[in-house]
């Protein structure tokens, strides 16, 4: 007999009250058996990833760039493609199910999902938060932190980070992020540096319980492996988790907290006796991550000054307008700004002077200048980047005079190399990652042809006895003036990040 019926029997012709119905429904409705809730989260994640991949693909297609930063990227892509192909074969899926490669991470133990035509069952790498506070540039970070800045010197082509964050409120935490070269929204590597003495690291599940080894998080297994990095205790973490950094003040109270949802492979370590602990989030293998961790080198000005060049040429001086700083300069310039990123030459990372110039003919031009260390009157290197209207293709190899044509205030102008040693050296074609470059030995002078038929000196190389390496990538022109030999200039140019 149902309770509802029993109540009716008692009350005869009086229908049950709202209160009774309320209790009855509350009781009965809870007994309803529902189908097992399917794994909606995974399917939603794949759909969103497919959306993102499609958007990224479209964006990449629009801004297709032949240049790649890492020479090994093509290999990585081929391996990734091969793995995706392998995963499509059921027999091979179990074998490769735990691998993580390059941009994409193959989902471990992924349930069979309804296939969306043309969309591979892959998810993007760990989420990226582009709105982290405290964004700065590497030069400012070095200035603020002195010898405290360390970066991996492995792999050799990693270069400088694309983003640098200095979280002063979190006890000077620094975050360095390298993006995938062809996917500016996709991080490849993130390195966190935080004070060992005042922070506590916890791996926290969504329900705020501290994860122990092998604990499940939202259906994904989180694997932690204790190991050593350079003799220091370290932990390798695979799987999705929340990374919590808490800053405990002198009184033992929680002063600041930062949480990140992580889905990359993570290596956390604390060098013996070191002031800082580090966390490396990447999608490489454990062995590769350990190699990166062990390759950390201080990125600070060398303790002994470089030998200075003397005498200083009086023409090595700067008389340039529009001085500015690096921070957010990309936005103002309208193109992606690059700086030399040679780990062994950290003094080149932060230019000593930066200028932004704009005019109708030349477009936006950024001029960076480096002094010889300890000598504010001796220019060592000048880099111009911009969208000015000229073409290195116009370089004339038939004469030692005409080197490059351009336009100044509506008048034709020419860069002239007057002191070239020989035509072969003066205009030696070079190769920068397959991009044609021109090397002009000896200083150059720019002459403008005025409407009244005169020729006036409009500009000159900023460095006396300098040479020039000029190249162009995706519409952005680069002009490096230096007194370094060609081989060193090429190294500087190829390190541009």
């Amino acid at each position, binding site marked *: *007999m*149902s309770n*509802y*019926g*029993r109540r*009716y*029997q008692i009350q005869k012709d009086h*229908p*049950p009250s*709202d209160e009774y*119905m*309320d209790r009855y*429904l*509350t009781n*009965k*409705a*809870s*007994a*309803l*058996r*529902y*189908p*097992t*809730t*399917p794994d*909606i*989260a*995974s*399917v*939603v*994640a794949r*759909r*969103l*990833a497919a959306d*993102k991949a499609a958007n990224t693909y479209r964006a990449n297609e629009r801004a297709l760039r032949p240049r790649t930063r890492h020479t090994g990227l093509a290999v990585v892509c081929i391996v990734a493609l091969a793995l995706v192909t392998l995963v499509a074969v059921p027999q091979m899926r179990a074998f490769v199910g735990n691998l993580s490669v390059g941009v994409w991470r193959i989902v471990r133990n992924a349930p069979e999902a309804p296939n969306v035509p043309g969309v591979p069952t892959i*998810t*993007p790498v*760990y*989420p*990226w*938060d*582009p*709105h982290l506070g405290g964004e700065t540039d590497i030069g400012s970070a070095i200035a603020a932190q002195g010898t405290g800045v360390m970066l991996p010197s492995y792999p050799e082509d990693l270069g400088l980070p694309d983003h640098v964050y200095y979280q002063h409120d979190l006890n000077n935490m620094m975050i360095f992020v390298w993006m995938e070269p062809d996917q500016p929204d996709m991080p490849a590597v993130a390195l966190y540096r935080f004070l060992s003495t005042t922070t506590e690291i916890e791996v926290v599940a*969504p329900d705020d319980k501290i994860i122990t080894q092998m604990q499940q998080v*939202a*259906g994904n297994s989180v694997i932690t492996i204790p190991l050593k990095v350079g003799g220091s205790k370290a932990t390798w973490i695979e799987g*999705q988790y929340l990374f919590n950094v808490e800053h405990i003040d002198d009184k033992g109270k929680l002063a600041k907290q930062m949480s990140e*949802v*992580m*889905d990359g492979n993570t290596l956390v370590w604390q060098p013996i006796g070191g002031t800082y602990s580090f966390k490396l989030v990447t999608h490489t293998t454990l062995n590769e991550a350990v190699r990166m961790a062990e390759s950390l080198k201080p990125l600070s000005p060398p303790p002994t000054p470089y030998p200075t060049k003397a005498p200083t040429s009086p023409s090595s001086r700067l008389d340039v307008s529009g001085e500015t700083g690096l921070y957010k300069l990309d936005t103002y310039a309208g193109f992606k700004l690059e700086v030399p990123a040679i780990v062994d030459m950290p003094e080149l990372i932060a230019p000593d002077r930066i200028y932004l110039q704009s005019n109708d003919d030349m477009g936006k031009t950024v001029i960076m200048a480096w002094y010889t260390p300890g000598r504010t009157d001796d220019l060592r290197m000048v880099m111009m980047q911009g969208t000015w209207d000229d073409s290195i293709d116009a370089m004339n190899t038939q004469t030692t005079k005409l080197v490059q044509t351009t336009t100044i205030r509506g008048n034709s102008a020419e860069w002239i190399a007057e002191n070239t040693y020989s035509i072969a050296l003066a205009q030696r074609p070079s190769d920068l990652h397959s991009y044609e470059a021109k090397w002009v030995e000896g200083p150059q002078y720019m002459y403008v042809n005025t409407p009244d038929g005169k020729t006036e000196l409009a500009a000159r190389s900023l460095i006396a006895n300098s040479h020039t390496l000029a190249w162009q990538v995706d519409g952005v022109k680069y002009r490096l003036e230096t007194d370094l030999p060609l081989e060193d200039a090429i190294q500087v140019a190829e390190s541009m990040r």
Partner: protein
Amino acid sequence: MISRARRGNDAAWEMLVRDHQEAIFRLAYLLLGDAHEAEDIAQDVFVRAFRALDTFDSTRPLRPWLLRITTNLAHNHRRSVGRYMAMVKRAISASPEYSTGLGERTSQQWEAQTLWEAVRRLSTHEQEVVYLRYFLDLSEAEMSATLDVPPGTIKSRLHRAMRRLRAVVDEDFPALREERLT
């Protein structure tokens, strides 16, 4: 977590989905009466919600917002022609995966199932308030946020739904009142 998801953090959103997917799937199942359709709707709810996170007032709880999207999508879905075709297709190749195990039901489960069938005779608005209040156990405040109506309207809708449900049971579900019939 919501603010991270709003900034495009897919993993944060996945965690939120896991927190709420059962309630969303169940409401869709109650409204549509079909597990496959409920799953489709639940997926759409979370995908659409993610895309519309910028419009969400993060000072408010997330669940009522998701439930509201669910009721809207289910309402639209019920009226679509494609739904009929999909049901026919599934009827031809029926899968046992969503079986609720009829043979193993206890009398309580049978009563709950019959009660649900009675509730499905009510109007859409009446069904919604009954499902939210009794099947998903929402408070009146949460119902008010979900259906975007004042609490007073929730009370009156519940009262009307109850009155209608009594009538439906009296007329069409005598088994629920077997004692009175005997």
